[in-house]
C-alpha cells in the first residue's frame, strides 16, 4: 500500500506541468487543456486524501465520502466551464481568424 506522500508528489507534478503549459503556450486550446490537467490533479489528490484516515474504529466513512462527492461536483463545474470556454474560443476565432492567446489583449480597450 503506497504512502500518502507519493500521491501528493504525483498530483504536484501534474499540477506544475499544467502550470508550465498554461504559462508557455500561446495556442488557447492547449492553455485550456492545461487547465483541465490541473483540475484533474486536484481531483486525484482529493480522492487520495479520502482514503487517508480510515484507520479508526468508526473509520470516518462519512467525511471520506464527502471528499469523493466534492470530486463529483468539481467534474460538474469543469464540464460547464468547458462548454462556455470553447464557445468563447470559437467566437474569438470567428472575429480574429486566430486562436492566439495574445489577441485577447484587445479586450482591454
Amino acid at each position, binding site marked *: 500500500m503506497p504512502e500518502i506522500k507519493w500521491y501528493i508528489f504525483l498530483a504536484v507534478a501534474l499540477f506544475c506541468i499544467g502550470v*508550465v503549459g498554461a504559462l*508557455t503556450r500561446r495556442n488557447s486550446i492547449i492553455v485550456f*487543456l492545461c487547465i483541465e490537467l490541473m483540475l484533474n490533479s486536484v481531483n486525484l489528490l482529493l480522492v487520495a486524501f479520502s*482514503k487517508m484516515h480510515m484507520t479508526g474504529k468508526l473509520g470516518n*466513512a462519512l467525511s471520506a465520502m464527502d471528499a469523493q462527492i466534492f470530486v463529483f*461536483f468539481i467534474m460538474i463545474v469543469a464540464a460547464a466551464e468547458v*462548454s*462556455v470556454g470553447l464557445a468563447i474560443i*470559437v467566437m474569438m476565432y470567428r472575429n480574429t481568424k486566430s486562436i492566439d492567446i495574445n489577441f485577447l489583449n484587445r479586450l482591454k480597450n
Partner: protein
Amino acid sequence: MTTTQLLFWFLSALAIIGAIGAVGSKNPIYAVLWLIVVFFAISGHYVLMNAQFLAIVNIIVYAGAIMVLFTFVIMFIDLNEHPEMPKNIYLKAGGIIAGLCLMIVLVSALARADNAHTVLQLGTGVGLIKYLGERLFSDYVIPFEISSVLFLSAMIGAVIIGKKEPEQAT
C-alpha cells in the same frame, strides 16, 4: 515490490509522460490524445484506490464528453492556415522556471509534513456507487439540483456566445 506498488508506479509514469506530451506537442489534436492517456491513467489510480464511481465518471465525463468537445472545436478551426507563432524565448524560460520553482517549494514543504508517511487504506468500500449514491441523494440533494441549473445556464450561455451575429450590426 507488491502488485499494488507496481501498478502505482506504472500509472504514475504513464500520467506524467502523458502530461508532458500534452504540454509539449505542437498539434492540438496530439495534445488531446495525450491528455486522454492522462485521464485513463488517473482513472486507473481511482480503481486502485477502490473509488469505482469516480473512475467510471472520469472516463465518461472527461475522456468521453469533454475531449470529444475539444476535438470537435479543433476540427472546426482550421489550424494549418494559422500556425502558432513562436513565443519569446525569455518568456518561455521564465514560465518553465516558475513552474519548477512551484514544484520544488510544494514538494519540499509537503515531504516533511507530519502525516506524510500515513499509509493509505485502499480496500475500504467508501467509493462504491451504493454508498455515494445514498449520500448524494440525501445530504447533497440540493447542490445536485442546483448543478442542473448550472448546466442549463452554461448551455444557454454557450448557445448565445456561439451564435452568429446579424450582419447589420457591423
